[in-house]
């Protein structure tokens, strides 16, 4: 279905994404992961393909809207973490989740850095 269009673009992955953003002839970006996610959230072990499609469309619309809004606030034309945090400040669940993820990411980065320093410098060195 999408094969003849792909040949016109240089990068196939970029073409997939652009195609996914058009409303006609969409290429599915998240089918496999979404199935697992829906099962995890309470759906049947084999969710309907139409349901998965609907949710994928919703997710892409969600990400698109968030990205557009984030580009308007803070530094225009760019998306920064602070903008995203600002956009979800009213939604308690999402706000807490973002804070958690960013904190965990920082801790993991610190841990990896510490681990690497220990590996290179020997176990007697104190990192930082």
């Amino acid at each position: 279905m999408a094969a003849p269009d792909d040949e016109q673009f240089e990068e196939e992955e970029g073409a997939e994404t652009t195609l996914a953003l058009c409303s006609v002839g969409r290429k599915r970006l998240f089918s496999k992961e979404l199935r697992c996610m829906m099962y995890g959230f309470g759906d049947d072990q084999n969710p309907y393909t139409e349901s998965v499609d609907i949710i994928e469309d919703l997710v892409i619309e969600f990400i698109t809207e968030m990205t557009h809004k984030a580009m308007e606030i803070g530094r225009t034309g760019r998306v920064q973490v602070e903008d995203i945090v600002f956009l979800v400040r009213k939604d308690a669940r999402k706000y807490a989740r973002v804070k958690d993820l960013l904190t965990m990411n920082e801790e993991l980065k610190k841990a990896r850095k510490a681990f690497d320093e220990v590996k290179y410098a020997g176990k007697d060195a104190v990192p930082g």
Partner: protein
Amino acid sequence: MENILNKDAHVLEQLKYDLNNTNSDSDGGYEDDDSTEAALAIEENILKDEFVRSKRTDHFLPPIKSEKIDTDIILPEASQSLAKQNEIRKREKSKKEMEEEEREKMQVLVSNFTEEQLDRYEMYRRSAFPKAAIKRLMQTITGCSVSQNVVIAMAGIAKVFVGEVVEEALDVMEEHSETGPVQPKHLREAVRRMRLQGAIPSGRTYYRSHFRL
């Protein structure tokens, strides 16, 4: 998913270990070996932090700062008296105790899961959006590059969003006393309800006229 049926004991151990060391699910970018190593390194790092802190000359990472992220009010360091700092430290300790308690409760809960519940829980924790696809999607939209933190945040929020939609759809299904996989009609009704509540960002003026911000 079939490999889980053959290794349920292993899965239980892995889940218990995950629960002990992390509060959030492991993202697709990190492999299992990495995250367990990293988790051990985090524990080590936290212990080292407390040991090294007394020897540090510049305190740009004071002990209280790690908790500041959770509170909305950020007090400037200079104006805090010693008494206040001690009070905050006591609250920190009880927060850690509460976290410990919560982890224990989760452990007890997970250890009593049936096979099916365990399976579903593992999918809940492990499923995630592929960071590469999200990054490509956002870069296609913005036209300029996005940092890794932004991708991490967006992937996490998108997962929460999916959860909200699916839960709402399950509620709708329950109201109609239907069972089985969620059908598109339930999803559409769920989305309609969420749009009314303003839980779905769409354009700009859809809900602003009805609700105050």
